[in-house]
């Protein structure tokens, strides 16, 4: 029984150390699980995601977009597909139709011609938006009903090329991982001790088979 308990404690401790280490290493001290940078290019000044591209909901994510080469006047926003498609209409753009993680994009060229109804800065329905000269960082929680990401050069032009880094944010993940490692080590050491340390038998059962005069002590 002692042996089984010791093995269990050792196994739980080792698993905790392993998962904690994976968690701490994966997220790092900045609590981010990131992929990138990946280059995304468009013949125009506009890159969007389609309504089915972001198939997941739940975690908080960050999208860091940096223009390749000369700094561009970047806008990055995420809004409901109905709003985004109405705003952009038939504006020519590169659309990301599918994202396979860790990172593979399926894109298509859409839009027969035209311009957006308004500047992305003139509407208030973005879930989140960011702008920057050469770099913009967007953070939002993936909603149940999706969302289209828009990357645009506010000054127009063509041949927009950007480096995109996507990350899942989990505040405290590194600390939790480190704590799991420490606690797991403790449990494993205790398990090892239970498994290997001989404890001097005491009590009624300890005397079984060695009757002494006067009975058990």
């Amino acid at each position, binding site marked *: 029984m002692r042996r089984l308990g010791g093995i269990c404690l050792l196994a739980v401790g080792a698993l905790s150390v392993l998962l904690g280490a994976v968690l701490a290493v994966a997220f790092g001290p900045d609590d981010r*699980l990131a992929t990138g940078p990946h280059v995304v290019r468009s013949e125009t000044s506009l890159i969007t995601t389609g309504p089915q591209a972001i198939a*997941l*909901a739940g975690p*908080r994510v960050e999208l860091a977009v940096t223009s390749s080469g000369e700094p561009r006047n970047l806008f990055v926003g995420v809004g*409901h597909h109905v709003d985004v498609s109405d705003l952009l209409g038939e504006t020519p753009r590169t659309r990301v139709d599918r994202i396979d993680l860790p990172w593979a994009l399926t894109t298509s060229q859409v839009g027969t011609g035209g311009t957006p109804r*308004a500047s992305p800065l003139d509407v208030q329905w973005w879930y989140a938006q960011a702008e920057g000269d050469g770099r913009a960082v967007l953070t939002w929680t993936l909603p149940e*009903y999706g969302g289209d990401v828009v990357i645009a050069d506010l000054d127009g032009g063509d041949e927009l090329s950007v480096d995109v880094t996507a990350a899942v944010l989990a505040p405290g*993940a590194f600390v939790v*991982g480190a704590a799991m490692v420490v606690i797991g080590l403790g449990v494993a050491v205790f398990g090892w001790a239970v498994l290997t340390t001989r404890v001097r038998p005491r009590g009624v059962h300890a005397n079984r088979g060695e009757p002494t005069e006067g009975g058990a002590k």
Partner: protein
Amino acid sequence: MRRRWPAAALACLVLALGGCSLPHARTGDATSKVSARPAEVSSLLDSYNAARRRGDDERDPSILRRVETGPLLDIDAGAYFVSARSGSAEAVQPVQLAGLLTTVGPRFTRYPMWVGALVDDVGSGTRRFVVFERRHSAAPWLMTAGPELAGGSGLPAVVKDEGGAADHVPAAGAERLAMSPQEAVDAYARALSDPAAVEQDRFEQDDFRSGNADFREAQQELQYASFSQRWEAHPVRYAVRLEDGGALVVGTLTRTDTYRVQPESFIDWEGNAAAKAYLPGRVFRSAQLTFRHQVLMAIPERGKARLLGQYGGVVDGRGS
């Protein structure tokens, strides 16, 4: 695909351990949206109240244009015009929408989209069903309708899906209804135009229709002018399904009152501030006053439709 499983499982485990919401397949529909949620409607009401307060103080329709459009703007701008011309503050009914009681927002796959809201109007002491519409994604939400409910009553229960979206009924959709929304508003216009029309039997009795019948009768007894009145329905844009199987409909009607003055007579509109504002002085030959009215009605699955409320006023006048 099989090779991705361990990585996906590990990623989920790592995220769960990290205190992060577990990533999961989306359950919502990405290609349609509920027009507006209660929080957004509350914000719209605040903006409306601020503009309306200023507009009511200054009697300036250009302020109203920032928050209203369509027939409702015609009606309220008409009231400002009458008030300015007559110098009477009574022509303008102060509006302050305080309590948001219910929102009715259908799901849309494209613009334009609209949202209805039942609100208490503490300015006039009434309850109104207001409708905001947004023509496109870069346009502002503007109020397009605001019928007042008779006796401050409530709305019949509106069907809503799991996401809180009302079930939009097409204007011509008569499925499981005594008549389609457009048919109902057309029929109501005919019932208002002609007391002998067969459409009278398609509606329960209401004060608005009986009041109009009394007014028309009184005008037709004028000895110095002949009077005729015509009602026309506008295309219906706002209708939703009710839990009792019926439909809630907001419709707009245009009313045209025409007077033909007898030879050697005139009309000077004493006691009629609205007509006097649009037709100052005396009318010797003919006069025409145009009104807009917005009606809120409930159409049952079977039986007679019922008027729940209305709001209207004079919007134009011409005469000679």
